[in-house]
């Protein structure tokens, strides 16, 4: 809890500094500190009911995952743009499939569903305890998801946060 609070204070104050750009005015620095403290106290009151406090180690692993996801996004963008401009050669084949998801925490499942939606050509339509219903623009994109590499990577990310 102390670690979580101090991390929250530190990152919020850094965020405030970067957004405001007032590095030298002590009154404004103090006011920024007060508002950061207020937000941290409110957040801590909300978080009391939430047992997941592993976000710090998650952040470290997130970098590698984002890099992998960025490459996926680039490829998916190319596929969708080709389907837009050359519909004869690259026809769309809308598909709906149900994916099993192996994540156990709400955070992990959210990361998985958001990653699916963030890559163009696939959208998570329905998320529940067993899995995710996905709508894909092209059957290939659905098959690629069904191979489960993204699911495994998100689960590995989730485990590393324990």
């Amino acid at each position, binding site marked *: 809890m102390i670690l979580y609070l101090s991390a929250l204070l530190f990152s919020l104050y850094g965020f405030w500094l970067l957004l405001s750009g007032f590095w030298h005015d002590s009154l404004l620095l103090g006011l920024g500190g007060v508002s950061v403290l207020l937000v941290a106290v409110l957040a801590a009151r909300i978080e009391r009911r939430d047992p997941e406090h592993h976000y710090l180690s998650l952040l470290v692993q997130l970098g590698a995952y984002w890099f992998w996801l960025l490459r996926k996004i680039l490829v998916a963008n190319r596929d969708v743009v080709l389907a837009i401009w050359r519909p004869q050669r690259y026809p769309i084949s809308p598909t709906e499939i149900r994916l099993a998801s192996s994540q156990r925490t709400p955070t992990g499942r959210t990361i998985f569903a958001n990653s699916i939606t963030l890559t*163009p050509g696939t959208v998570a339509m329905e998320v529940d305890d067993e899995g995710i219903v996905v709508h894909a623009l092209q059957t290939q994109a659905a098959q690629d998801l069904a191979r489960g590499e993204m699911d495994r990577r998100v689960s590995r990310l989730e485990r590393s946060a324990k």
Partner: protein
Amino acid sequence: MIILEILSWLLLLFGAFLGISGAVGILRFPDFYTRIHAAGVTDTLCAGAILCGLMLQAGLSLVSVKLAFILLFLWFTSPTASHALASAARHAGLKPHLAPSREDSPSTP
């Protein structure tokens, strides 16, 4: 500096092209769910390319940091919005147009 300028303009033009592609896709695709995918291009790479191009214009400054924050928040919130739209349409009972299943149609390349 001229190299940065050229790179920045290439990124801006690339982003503009992707934005137009997304708009054309929204007009061209057949139903609501497929149109979300076209909008996804505008949400991800179009916004990313334009913001990166602007960051190169701004150089190493607080403006670039703010642009990076915008990109980060956009990439967090836009899938949430897309999912909310798709989920709402599904709950309202809108059926997607689906391609005939692969068994009874010649396979797509």
